[in-house]
């Protein structure tokens, strides 16, 4: 199911002629973008670069003014979108217990009671939340809440996982836990597309990188090459820790 080799003629995600404008101001203009290979793909860029907007388009949450997004050559029908999951910059946890948040998704997959219980326990263990199952999700700490948001996304059994700056408000310890979860999921074949503006995180996680600035993709390539020899002066400044303005 997660074997992408059978779809070699289509990139996993493909963007063509995408544009979004509000009040006469262009917010996003991505003419041509293909995401391929095993990932993780890291989308990098400063505040307001359009990273979240692009992610929303890839997930089909907003319909662009113009342009198309396809996954494996298919447009984003409900069925295709069901194979995607997203962790938001500000995750919304349901006003239920930790286990209740996972069960909500498992129920929608039509699993039996017993299967839900088993899977829920497995997920909780995976995120180190076993002893929090009955706790109200809204009372979790920031790091725990973010872990639960990721577990809930994983509970959808997606083939593509979008994450929007999941660690921007977390301390190094919590950040590391999240990064390990993301890497583990990626190693197991899940296609990860993650937004960050943390250059160190990009270096730790990325196989390939998409650089955005002012609503446009300014550079794309394999992480190893890009971090070694960035083509763009702006990027070089960003990578060396300078401010991108």
């Amino acid at each position, binding site marked *: 199911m997660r074997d992408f080799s059978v779809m070699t003629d289509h990139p996993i995600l493909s963007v063509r002629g995408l544009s979004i404008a509000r009040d006469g101001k262009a917010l996003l203009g991505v003419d041509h973008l293909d995401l391929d290979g095993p990932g993780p793909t890291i989308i990098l860029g400063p505040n307001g670069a359009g990273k979240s907007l692009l992610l*929303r388009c890839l997930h089909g949450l907003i319909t662009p003014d113009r342009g198309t997004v396809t996954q494996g050559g298919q447009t984003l029908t*409900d069925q295709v979108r069901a194979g995607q*999951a997203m962790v938001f910059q500000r*995750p919304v946890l*349901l006003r239920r217990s930790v286990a209740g948040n996972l069960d*909500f*998704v498992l129920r929608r997959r039509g699993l039996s009671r017993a299967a839900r219980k088993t899977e829920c326990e497995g997920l909780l263990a995976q995120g180190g939340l076993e002893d929090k199952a009955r706790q109200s999700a*809204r*009372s979790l700490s920031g790091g725990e809440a973010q872990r639960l948001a990721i577990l809930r996304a994983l509970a*959808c059994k997606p083939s593509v996982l979008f994450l929007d700056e999941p660690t921007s408000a977390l301390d190094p310890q919590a950040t590391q836990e999240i990064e390990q979860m993301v890497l583990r999921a990626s190693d197991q074949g899940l296609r990860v597309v993650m937004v960050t503006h943390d250059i160190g995180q990009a270096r730790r996680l990325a196989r390939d990188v998409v650089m955005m600035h002012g609503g446009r993709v300014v550079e794309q390539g394999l992480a190893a090459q890009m971090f070694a020899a960035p083509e763009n002066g702006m990027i070089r400044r960003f990578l060396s820790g300078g401010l991108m303005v």
Partner: protein
Amino acid sequence: MQDFTQEFTIALGLIFTGDPELWAIVLLSLKVSVWAVFIAALIGMPLGAGLAVGRFPGRRALIVLINALMGLPPVVVGLLVYLMLSRSGPFGVLQLLYTPTAMIIAQVVLVTPIIAALTRQVVETLAVEYDEQLRSLGVSRLSSVPVLLWDGRMALMTALLAGFGRAIAEVGAVIIVGGNINHVTRVMTTTIALETSKGNLALALALGAVLIALAVSVTGAVSVLSLRGERQGLGHA
């Protein structure tokens, strides 16, 4: 002064000896208002939720209308229900006037707008917060309604209690359609009005005490619930 002390003593006696007449009146009041709130919830909650997530022409006007209906003067509601149920009215053949059912109907009319308006507010706020997350999880607009109602359960409980508080303390409408008939349609508020005017202060005081106790418990329950709701809402929104 001497008189009042005596009336107080009798009132306490009525309450604590379990005076059958007193408790029959309390029971009928509870029965009427609980039924009224139950029926009002069955109408008001789906209505409120529909107004919160639905997208149809006339939606805004309907919201304004329901908010306006919240402030209906009970006496006017009583009058309208009376006209509907009176012998020559459209529902006269049902012979419901001066029955507990008539009182339930009047209270339903009073309480439904309250529950609908509060439900709409609660569900709409949640819907905005949950919108992208639910769409991401593939939950359609229609199937988001039970999710939003369930996750808004604390606030919705508050709406129900507010409705109950209004119903149980209401006098103007039920006295018109119920008629305050002894052993048939006499509820706490109407009995207090009648007995006070007759000078029978003991029964009025006893019922007043029970009514206050009920009102205080309802208000207390509302504040406990909203406190819990707030605490749940704390943290990372």
